[in-house]
């Protein structure tokens, strides 16, 4: 059944599941449904399976706007906002998938705790969206990815089975690690309804040290020095000249900047200053520091998109490369952009080889990105993982283990109901 052929009867039936106020017809065709509980999610999915309808889960729509979703049903998680548990003494929390990252952060901040996920647009990005996309921000360097601190997940499979993996404690190896399977699966296997996380003590004080360099090579040598040192900053970010201009248009010089965010006492921060040495050109703290990291977190999101609640930087290319290859990857990107006239800007958690690349200029959008990807794959082969932030298929290079992925998809969503992204 196509989106446009979804009948009024179906809307009526979904209203009986989720309540009349929580079902609407979409201007682009299809039905929009906003369940209030895991039971309602399961009922809606059972209904979709029964009637051979396709479903796309949606949270804050920060990667893809809801209007882009072309399924029969868009299942919005916005009403799944229950706090299942908050055990601040144990540094754990469990919340509904529809809670936003900002809401979660505010809740635990009162107890001087911190949720380590810092994806773009935290005011709109939901817990479910963070898990489904495995999005990351600058704190990925110091605290790991969401796979490292998600300790439990509740979900409804594509074929409408309610289930869970993990639990509420920080250490737990009972059963298969379903958190790992669902994190980054883009809602193609199950709809996440709630999740539990490990929290961290909030740093009492932070400071950010900036070091500017004429070339990416110099900046990455500085990165290597930091990685070999005893320092363990919570963020270690590279900002290209183009990215810097995007974030701060008044900056007109062509510097590559390494941003080091440290947490600790005055003595610890003094040690950072000593170790980083004369390379430091600026130190930021308080509001200025917060503003800079927020700009890095929202890299590529235009003010207009943020104001209009549109998708944030849907054309961003997310690269995961071997840390020692970052330099070569950047060289390849710059060479290619010089050839095609594309304007490439990038930031990245370069300690772990993660880069976010924006393509603009003469050939922006899909064509420009396509050329860059081909160039990168030619040089780096399987040493690089490419992800397209807002694309229908986030993995442009077919994974070598596609058959295993298909087997998993078949096990959890045999009717291919969950179609927010088209991977297969």
């Amino acid at each position, binding site marked *: 059944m196509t989106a446009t052929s979804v009948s009024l009867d179906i809307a009526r039936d979904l209203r009986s599941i989720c309540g009349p106020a929580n079902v609407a017809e979409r201007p682009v065709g299809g039905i929009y449904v906003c369940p209030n509980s895991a039971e309602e999610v399961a009922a809606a999915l059972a209904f979709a399976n029964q009637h051979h309808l396709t479903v796309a889960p949606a949270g804050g729509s920060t990667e893809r706007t809801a209007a882009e979703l072309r399924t029969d049903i868009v299942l919005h998680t916005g009403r799944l906002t229950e706090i299942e548990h908050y055990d601040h003494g144990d540094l754990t929390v469990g919340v509904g998938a529809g809670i936003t990252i900002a809401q979660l952060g505010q809740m635990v901040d009162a107890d001087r705790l911190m949720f380590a996920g810092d994806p773009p647009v935290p005011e709109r990005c939901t817990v479910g969206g963070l898990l489904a996309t495995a999005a990351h921000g600058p704190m990925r360097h110091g605290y790991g990815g969401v796979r490292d601190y998600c300790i439990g997940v509740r979900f409804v499979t594509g074929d409408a089975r309610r289930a869970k993996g993990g639990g509420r404690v920080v250490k737990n190896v009972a059963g298969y690690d379903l958190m790992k399977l669902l994190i980054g699966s883009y809602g193609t296997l199950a709809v996440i309804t709630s999740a539990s996380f490990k929290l961290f003590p909030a740093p009492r004080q932070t400071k950010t040290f900036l070091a500017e360099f004429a070339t990416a090579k110099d900046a990455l040598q500085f990165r290597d020095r930091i990685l070999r040192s005893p320092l363990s900053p919570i963020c270690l970010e590279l900002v290209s000249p183009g990215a810097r201009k995007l974030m701060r248009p008044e900056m007109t010089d062509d510097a590559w900047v390494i941003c080091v965010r440290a947490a600790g006492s005055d003595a610890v921060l003094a040690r950072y200053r000593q170790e980083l040495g004369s390379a430091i050109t600026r130190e930021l703290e308080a509001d200025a520091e917060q503003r800079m990291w927020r700009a890095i977190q929202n890299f590529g999101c235009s003010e207009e998109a943020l104001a209009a609640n549109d998708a944030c930087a849907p054309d961003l290319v997310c690269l995961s490369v071997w840390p020692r290859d970052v330099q070569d990857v950047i060289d390849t990107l710059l060479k290619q952009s010089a050839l095609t006239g594309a304007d490439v800007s990038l930031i990245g958690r370069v300690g772990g080889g993660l880069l976010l690349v924006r393509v603009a200029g003469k050939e922006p959008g899909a064509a420009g990105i396509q050329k860059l990807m081909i160039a990168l794959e030619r040089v780096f082969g399987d040493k690089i*993982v490419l992800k397209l932030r807002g694309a229908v298929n986030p993995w442009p*290079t077919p994974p070598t283990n596609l058959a295993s992925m298909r087997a998993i998809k078949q096990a959890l969503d045999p009717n291919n109901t969950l179609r927010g992204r088209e991977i297969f």
Partner: protein
Amino acid sequence: MPSSTVLAQLRKIVGSEALLDRPEDLMLYEYDAGVRKCTPAAVVFPRNTDHVAKIMELAASTGFPIVARGAGTGLSGGAIAPEGGVVIAFARMNRILEVDAANMRAVVQPGVVNQQLSENVAHLGLYFAPDPSSQKACTIGGNVAENSGGPHTLAYGVTVNHVTGLTVVMPSGEVVHFGGKTAESNGYDLTGFLVGSEGTVGIVTEITVRLLRRPERVATLLGIFETIDHGAKTVSAITAAGITPAALEMLDGWTLRAVEAACHAGYPLDAGAVLLIELEGLAEQVEEQAEAVRVVCLEQKAREVRRAKDENERALLWKGRKNAFAALGRLAPSYYSQDGVVPRTKIPAVLQFIESVSQKYGLRIGNIFHAGDGNLHPLILFDPRDPHQLEMVQAAGAEILERCVEMGGSITGEHGVGLEKRNLMPLLFTNDDLDVMLSLRNAFNAAGVLNPGKLFPTTRTCREVSGPSTNPVLQAEGM
């Protein structure tokens, strides 16, 4: 059970010197560090991925069970063969294939011993963080299968947090690659899914692990308490002070006396409990945290807080901790180790409960555990020659785990479910939860060839495709 023809084919694959089938040889492979015994039909020692793939193809076509085995140090019966069949022992696939310091990665075969990897990269200032107490013997393949932990996983996470890529032989015999050296994977995170799947989805033949840089300074403190309750309350007080130690271990008074007698680690003989607290990182930070921890311990009625003066003292304190299980072996012919987890604020209550279980069954139970993440290891001492004692020990263990789950915890923090705890899985998981897990297992291992009888309960409704066990020992136990 493999026929003589199949055994001949196996010999052809691995060489006749790499297959054991004489009863006296097989006895070495009928147990792990748990309490059950099951004899395999044969043990094979492959040397490479191709050998494993061929063994797997043979198993798939003739239908004999396969159980992968590292060093056999596991505590959940994961590496024994309750359905008979062939044990694939990885003792000869024990090479470190690559150390890539620039990318902080190493690629190893599954038979590499955990500690050997850290020793091998020490000259580069690097190490492999997961450190099970058995790290001198246990293999990284076993760590991957069980998603093993250790004391320092409090700060650094368990095995899954340190594995970025796997080469896996699937039950069909197909060789697949999941992940690699990159931080993220192309497609679903199948590496994360495979780790901890207890050998029921595929057989791992190469592992890419993350290496960490050794910290500049390490401070090891020993908090000495008059009562176990004071020690237990200190655990969450340290966390509440915003400090995450690299390790935070607890030994009760009875256990530490047994350990001291065996290891001479320097533990006080008259204490009610001790906390072994390790802080790592930048020198300034470690010194501040060490002082903060000392203050918290004293506020929580510690009698004394000692700090290891040098590497020797530190090593001695850890020797006591890591050899504790063996030390308790001096007091009874055997012990049964549990692996329950509770939220760390519930540690005082659960320790009181364990004491009541000890009294109820008249069994001696020692407590030595990863207190920082609430991962308990009650050690129940018993004599396995007395069948009645074994029954009581298992009942006592189950009661403790049930209480852990009631308190919001889990039945296993790092040892895995295996054979030991499979029938406790319904305490944590609903039938639907288990159905989803089973459908994932069956997506790859529908015939139940890989590690049958593990992880999934048999006491609910015989949902496991391979059906209830045919092993007489397990049948006698009602499994």
